[in-house]
């Protein structure tokens, strides 16, 4: 049986020479957590199931820095690596795959031009294409819906997150990386409603993201929703939870994880 996955996310600020892992809170405040390839190796050794690098600067001039980070990481880390941030076309993706990435994650460019999902999955296979969705709760006449944002949460699109997840899956996305903007950095737990609704609406894997602060939050999202993986950043970087301890806990509670 396939396991539920624990995925550390390394948000990278490439404005600093060589790049640094940073942690944002509600997409704004920032703390520094370390060198990307060093943190990635630490998590690999601790039993992480995959690593995600997100280029939060997503600026064109800094693209080469991300490629160096991936190259360095892949020399010592032998689990799947996903890279996201600022990928706009096949060429951008190709460079990252060549550097050693296994999957690329797209967000803004995919919403702006959905056909990109199709082009990438045709060129590299569905398994290599992750569509990231940053969703914010909205209330209309007492009913809650989730709005997709782009440009790292700076711009709203009016697009319904679940509708977009379904469409992305149809276009050939292999996975959905679903971040709750309301919960991101708050340590209050994953947005269960968002994750439940989305993971039940589509047949491709969903990676839950945003809000984890305690071990029980992972248990909660795995028990109450159909998500296949959970992403965490700050809680792991600052040693609040260690991966071996987390996996042991999940296993003892009946969740199928790799230990």
């Amino acid at each position, binding site marked *: 049986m396939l396991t539920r996955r624990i995925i550390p996310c390394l948000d990278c600020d490439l404005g600093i020479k060589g790049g640094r892992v940073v942690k944002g809170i509600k997409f704004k405040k920032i703390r520094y957590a370390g060198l990307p390839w060093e943190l990635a190796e630490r998590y690999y050794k601790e039993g992480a199931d995959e690593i995600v690098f997100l280029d939060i600067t997503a600026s064109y001039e800094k693209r080469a820095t991300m490629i160096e980070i991936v190259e360095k990481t892949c020399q010592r880390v032998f689990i799947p690596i996903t890279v996201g941030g600022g990928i706009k076309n096949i060429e951008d993706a190709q460079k990252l795959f060549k550097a050693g990435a296994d999957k690329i994650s797209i967000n803004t460019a995919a919403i702006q031009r959905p056909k990109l999902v199709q082009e990438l999955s045709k060129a590299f296979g569905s*398994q290599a294409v992750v569509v990231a969705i940053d969703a914010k709760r909205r209330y209309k006449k007492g009913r809650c819906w989730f709005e997709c944002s782009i440009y790292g949460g700076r711009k709203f699109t009016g697009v319904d997150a679940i509708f977009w997840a379904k469409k992305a899956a149809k276009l050939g996305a292999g996975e959905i990386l679903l971040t709750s903007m309301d919960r991101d950095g708050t340590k209050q737990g994953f947005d269960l409603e968002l994750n439940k609704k989305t993971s039940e609406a589509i*047949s491709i894997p969903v990676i839950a993201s945003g809000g984890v602060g305690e071990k029980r939050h992972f248990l909660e999202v795995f028990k109450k929703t159909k998500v296949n993986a959970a992403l965490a950043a700050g809680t792991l970087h600052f040693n609040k939870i260690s991966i071996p301890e987390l996996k042991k806990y999940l296993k003892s509670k009946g969740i199928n994880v790799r230990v």
Partner: protein
Amino acid sequence: MIIIINYGMGNLRSLANAFQFLGEKVKIIDNPKEIERAQKIVFPGVGHFGEAMRSLKTRKIDGAIQTRIHKGIPFLGICLGLQLLLEESEEAPGVKGFGVFKGKVLKFQKVKIPQIGWNQIKIQRKTKILKGIQDKSFVYFMHSFYVKPSDKKIIVSQTHYGKDFCSTIESENIFGVQFHPEKSGAVGLQILRNFIKL
């Protein structure tokens, strides 16, 4: 020295990195001449069965690969590289595989595809390629098709996804794994180390 065959199907960087990490020299090759001299071959691949065969033919390396396999040098097929060793695939009806092993490549039914993630290998018997690996170890999969060889004796591990399927084969000098050892952490590295030591 390990020769990794490049025929334009997937990224070979991680695989080369893994061998280098283990202290082994690697060379990525895309021409028949150098394949003919190879002493140990890794045949990776991600993508479409039909396109892979076409690409091998265009590069004129299909014959050289066949020759080396029959010569008896250690040969490791990974993912699509394993599937291509069979006779045919549901992914590309009418396209002939290498046919080194009798049998077919089938598509998963009634489960989410692709299978992406960590799953266990149930080891069937003592083998060279899985030496030192514990039964039910986790490895990383990323595929929609699986091999069904006619000769059950060559199946050395099975994995459960909807039903049991063949995840590792071994027959004399020929080995094949459906998962990605270069992405399977310490377990995967042990498998590559076993191949280096052959």
